[in-house]
């Protein structure tokens, strides 16, 4: 069983996201530890990219802050290698195709495996381009987590069949960011996914409140929260670990009994 599968064994999974190096890697280390201690089942670590086309303003700005602080792929690899001694929670990288490709896809993916990263989320790699990265991920035992969107329609089944780790269900049209309301029929998407794979699925994009997390977790195996956490990182800067830890605890509690 992969580490990612294990993340879904403790009830509904809560999956927080943070951009590495926002505002510096020391703070990111504290935040990741706080997430792990407060019930995060899987942690999504963002490697910043200069032009993140799938992100809304909150995560775009985090990318800019992190890059301005001088963080690089190599520094993030070293950071995770050290962090892995203390944090055992499964971790995946979320980044853009060019960050992986320009590093050398095989070198990037083999390094991920070496430092204890369990999977990869690449929002600009749809099913059509998956063949460029999936065989390398397989070779090194990393899960390449696919995304399905509200517009996927007849593609949901095809994507779910190829799923590794879990299927990332994009809750709404548009980019990442807090939303007051999610109107997509998530239940219907999840039903098609479950008909086509035994791997779990988690919902992300737009979730910020415990109630939204609970609503989403009713129909899926986990929830992913990014922008709401990155907002706290922006607000509290170097002191963000404590409020983020508290937030993660409240979110995990909201879905724990489901």
């Amino acid at each position: 069983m992969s580490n990612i599968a294990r993340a879904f064994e403790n009830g509904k999974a809560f999956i927080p996201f943070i951009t590495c190096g926002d505002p510096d890697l020391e703070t990111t280390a504290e935040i990741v530890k706080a997430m792990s201690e407060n019930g995060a089942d899987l942690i999504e670590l963002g490697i910043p990219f200069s032009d993140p086309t799938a992100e809304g303003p909150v995560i775009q700005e985090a990318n800019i802050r992190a890059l301005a602080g001088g963080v690089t792929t190599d520094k993030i690899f070293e950071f995770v290698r050290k962090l892995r001694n203390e944090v055992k929670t499964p971790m995946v990288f979320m980044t853009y195709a060019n960050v992986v490709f320009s590093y050398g896809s095989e070198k990037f993916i083999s390094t991920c495996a070496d430092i204890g990263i369990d999977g990869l989320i690449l929002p600009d790699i749809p099913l059509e381009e998956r063949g460029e990265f999936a065989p390398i991920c397989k070779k090194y035992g990393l899960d390449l987590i696919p995304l399905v969107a509200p517009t996927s329609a007849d593609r949901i089944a095809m994507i779910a069949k190829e799923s590794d780790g879990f299927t990332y269900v994009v809750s709404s049209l548009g980019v990442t960011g807090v939303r007051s309301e999610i109107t997509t029929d998530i239940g219907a998407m999840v039903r098609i996914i479950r008909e086509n794979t035994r791997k779990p699925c988690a919902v992300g994009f737009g979730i910020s409140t415990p109630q939204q997390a609970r609503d989403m977790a009713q129909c899926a195996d986990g929830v992913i929260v990014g922008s709401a956490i990155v907002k706290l990182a922006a607000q509290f800067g170097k002191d963000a670990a404590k409020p983020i830890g508290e937030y993660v605890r409240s979110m995990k509690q909201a879905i724990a009994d489901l």
Partner: protein
Amino acid sequence: MIKSKGRFGVHGGQYIPETLMNAVIELESAYNFYKNDPAFNKELETLFNEYAGRPSLLYYAEKMTKDLGGAKIYLKREDLNHTGAHKINNVLGQALLAKKMGKTRLIAETGAGQHGVATATAAALMGMECVVFMGEEDTKRQALNVYKMRLLGAEVVPVKSGTATLKDAVSEAMREWTSRISDTHYCLGSVMGPHPFPTIVRDFQAVISKEIKEQMLKKEGRLPDAVLACVGGGSNAIGSFYHFINDKEVRLIGCEAAGRGIDTFETAATINTGRLGIFHGMKSYFCQDKYGQIAPVYSISAGLDYPGVGPEHAYLYDIGRAEYVAITDDEAVNAFEYLSKTEGIIPAIESAHALAYAMKTAPQMDEEKIIVVTLSGRGDKDCAAIARYRGEDIYE
């Protein structure tokens, strides 16, 4: 596993969020139908001829030829098209296609504003809603074009993210498209982005080389020895090259913006200085750092100020079919002034990059050789900026 589509050698593909995949699949199937539909082609030809003013002239620049003393120089006058640039060819094609697909709203990115103005024009003509994304920096540099777009009924959204220039306008237009797909067509302005855009835009721009070929055979009874065009994303260049790709004796020369020089960081010469990467939906050459972060690029020409290049150009470069040279700001400004004084034609600063290379290469060629330079647009929009470059403090 599904196969990757829209490849030019290793370049191209569809590196976009899943949310957009069905939209580009729908676009591809509509395009594959309509490109072979005689009624669609007739309608587009009528728009080209009766609205945009095609065919554009192939003009023998006799004074320039004599002055430079070498190859005979012809200018393909895309600057004479309605809205003043080649951009209208692609926009009329895409707007008509979008309309056939039942879309009621066009969105577009723009750098200098030429593609934005062309899109706003087509939207006005066809009764469609139009939103144009433009880097905030560019809205200041090109205030007149912002006004024109509004006059034509479009909404202009200033983009503040990143470097607030063309690449950020593309990113923002893509973000907007992911949030509203059902009634909206993204009218991409160059031969870039995910498949099928590089192919669709090329096909609509290929009218340029189709006309050059016919006009040249009529005037000279033979093909030209070289075709020159400026390259940012590369739409006027691929349009100028396309029907000559199989005529191996015709040299194809793309002229990139070197900015302050290809040995500086202030450059936008992607093929000369970039390396293979994945961005804005395609694999191609990009200006980027060691870790794949996209570089802030620079050129005096807002229309060439883009860190990537269309995938078909990257491929033509790889196989050695086309050459790509770099022209500095200084050389382009000199050519801008030279053509104005010599032929009475004020070229766009983008097109002046191709002219600058013609000025270098024509004198080294025999008198019986013939070169064609595509004048992709007219230079009215650039006058104030060039005056400032020369130290004259004028504003439009």
